[in-house]
């Protein structure tokens, strides 16, 4: 069972930045991102999230997002997807970074979730 990370933000540049930050600590963890709307604007898109889910080579995904509608669209993608996706209501950058570092170290999901708990902000 392999675990990967999915980053969803209203802004494409934010997702790229978070991915860049994560890759420093977790070069081997599969990370895919969905940022902005289909036409490149600010917002989130179910289609883009579904593409990022499909593109991620992990079997299960830990998902991190920024504002409210990103969560709603993530939940829709979650319902449409066969791949298990776990959503965390934590600070986007700190949460994704923590999960990535732990995944790189081979830590299990239950333990990662324990460490994510103090980062819950929404």
């Amino acid at each position, binding site marked *: 069972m392999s675990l990967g990370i999915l980053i969803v933000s209203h802004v494409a540049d934010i997702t790229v930045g978070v991915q860049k930050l994560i890759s420093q600590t977790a070069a081997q963890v599969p990370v895919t991102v969905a940022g902005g709307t289909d036409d490149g604007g600010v*917002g989130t*898109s*179910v289609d883009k999230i579904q593409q990022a889910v499909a593109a991620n080579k992990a079997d299960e995904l830990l998902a991190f997002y920024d504002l409210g509608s990103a969560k709603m669209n993530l939940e829709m993608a979650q319902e449409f997807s066969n791949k298990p996706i776990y959503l965390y209501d934590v600070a986007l950058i700190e949460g994704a970074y923590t999960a990535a570092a732990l995944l790189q170290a081979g830590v299990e999901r239950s333990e990662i979730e324990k460490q994510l708990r103090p980062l819950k902000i929404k």
Partner: protein
Amino acid sequence: MALTLENTLNWLHGFDQVIEAKKAYLSQLDTPIGDGDHGNNLARGAAAIEAALEKNKPTDLTAALKTIAMALVSKVGGASGALYGTAFLEMAKTSQKTQALPDLLAAGLAGIQKRGSATTGEKTMVDVWAPVVTAAQAGELDQAVVDQAVQATKEMQATKGRASYVGEKSVGHLDPGAVSSGYLFTELLKTGVDK
């Protein structure tokens, strides 16, 4: 009070036209308390609904509701796409069991509440959907119910959604999602489904 393929198509054609006509106003409502894109986002969805209904030509109510839902989900983006999309998706599911309007609207409301984790009094579209469902279930849905529900959002303080970030400053503004939901139910009543 039952939805049929025919009145549902009329309903959505009416809604799509109103959204196109009111998109600037809806975005204007969304500017002081949101991100100013509600009208344009919904207008994109309205155009997508028209295109999808033209292309797929649904032959029953469930197929029509599902086509509408997927157009909203994939083209509107943001919270309103997920919320309206979920509402129509849940109505599509329920329409396999019943075509009764109160049941379908209740399923739509339940979908919105689940997706948005929202309840009444938070200055959202739920504040229009909930009284409309209650009135429909009592056989008392009319234009006054819709108008009063929309107007009531003006004095509420937002505690859900983007408007909650401006806190007390949200008081005095109509909620854009409530206004667009008001248009949805106004167009529904125009089809004569309540008669």
